[in-house]
């Protein structure tokens, strides 16, 4: 089986990855997954490409402005990896996320905003689908893989969704386009490592990038939080629709 490590001969990587968000992180992740030859890639987004996206959302081009991000991204993935099967999905909601992520082996969270990140977290934990969390803003960000039921999830570490205003999004706070390039690629790497069994996942570890200072730190997370509302011993969240306020839905 292919390890994803490129040699003269290209082999496909069996397995499927859903990338939720075809923005800054999703652009970098999709390019890396396509180039590695992942057999099936899903792309979920609901926005159209805007001119102001182009400095950081590197899969889209000027001529894509006004087109759905899913369609624009799929076209580039097809161009880079013609044998990859591509599925497109719309907005992920508390009502559809569990069924959608269940169609994939691994999920890349490339969403913008903590409400969306907790939706991906909670959906993947309920579905039992491994995923990588990623976040980015200005000159830094972080990556952590979660193996549901085995390693801590975002909720184990942060508890509740941080309130709006506490956490600017990329469009609010700005970002240097090369930064999500690094972090989105690191997320894709986690997906490839998971599918191929190569290397050691960032499960139970957070990799934090401070690209301004030029530092990368890896912090251990320890065990899951037994009182976590989604993956603890007596999880309180069983239906995402009932919990939809958390996600801003």
């Amino acid at each position, binding site marked *: 089986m292919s390890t994803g490590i490129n040699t003269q001969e290209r082999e496909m990587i069996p397995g499927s990855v859903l990338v939720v*968000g075809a*923005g*800054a*992180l*999703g652009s970098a992740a999709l390019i890396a997954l396509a180039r590695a030859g992942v057999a099936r890639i899903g792309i979920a987004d609901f926005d159209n490409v805007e001119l102001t996206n182009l400095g950081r959302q590197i899969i889209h081009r000027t001529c894509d402005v006004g087109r759905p991000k899913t369609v624009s991204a799929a076209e580039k993935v097809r161009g880079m990896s013609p044998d990859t099967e591509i599925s497109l999905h719309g907005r992920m909601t508390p009502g559809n996320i569990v069924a959608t992520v269940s169609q994939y082996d691994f999920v890349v*969270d*490339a*969403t*913008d*905003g*903590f409400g*969306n*990140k907790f939706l991906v977290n909670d959906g993947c934990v309920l579905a039992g689908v491994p995923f990588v969390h*990623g*976040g*980015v*803003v*200005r000159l*830094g*960000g*972080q990556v952590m893989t979660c193996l549901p039921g085995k390693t*801590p999830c975002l909720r184990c*570490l*942060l*508890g*509740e969704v*941080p*309130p709006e205003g*506490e*956490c*600017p*999004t*990329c*469009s609010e*706070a700005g*970002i240097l386009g090369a930064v*999500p390039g690094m972090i989105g690629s690191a997320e894709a790497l986690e997906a490839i490592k998971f599918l191929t069994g190569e290397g050691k996942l960032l499960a139970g570890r*957070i990799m*934090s990038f401070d690209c301004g200072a030029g*530092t990368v*730190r890896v*912090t*251990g*997370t*320890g065990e899951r*939080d037994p009182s976590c509302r989604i993956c603890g011993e007596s999880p309180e969240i069983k239906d995402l629709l009932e919990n939809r306020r958390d996600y801003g839905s």
Partner: protein
Amino acid sequence: MVKINGEQKDVAGLSVKEYLVGANYSLFRVAVELNGEILKKNEFESVVFKDGDVAEIVNFVGGG
């Protein structure tokens, strides 16, 4: 002295919460590993840094 994210800081005697607030961290989106263990959020106020402690603070950001 307390080693925080690789740097020695003169903060022994301060609670974790006091340090985080003073250093302008948002308590809502921070994870703190102290001597190899992740602290629960409700421990930020009661746990006090001691000389020789080693802490890692991860400031989660939510853009994408």
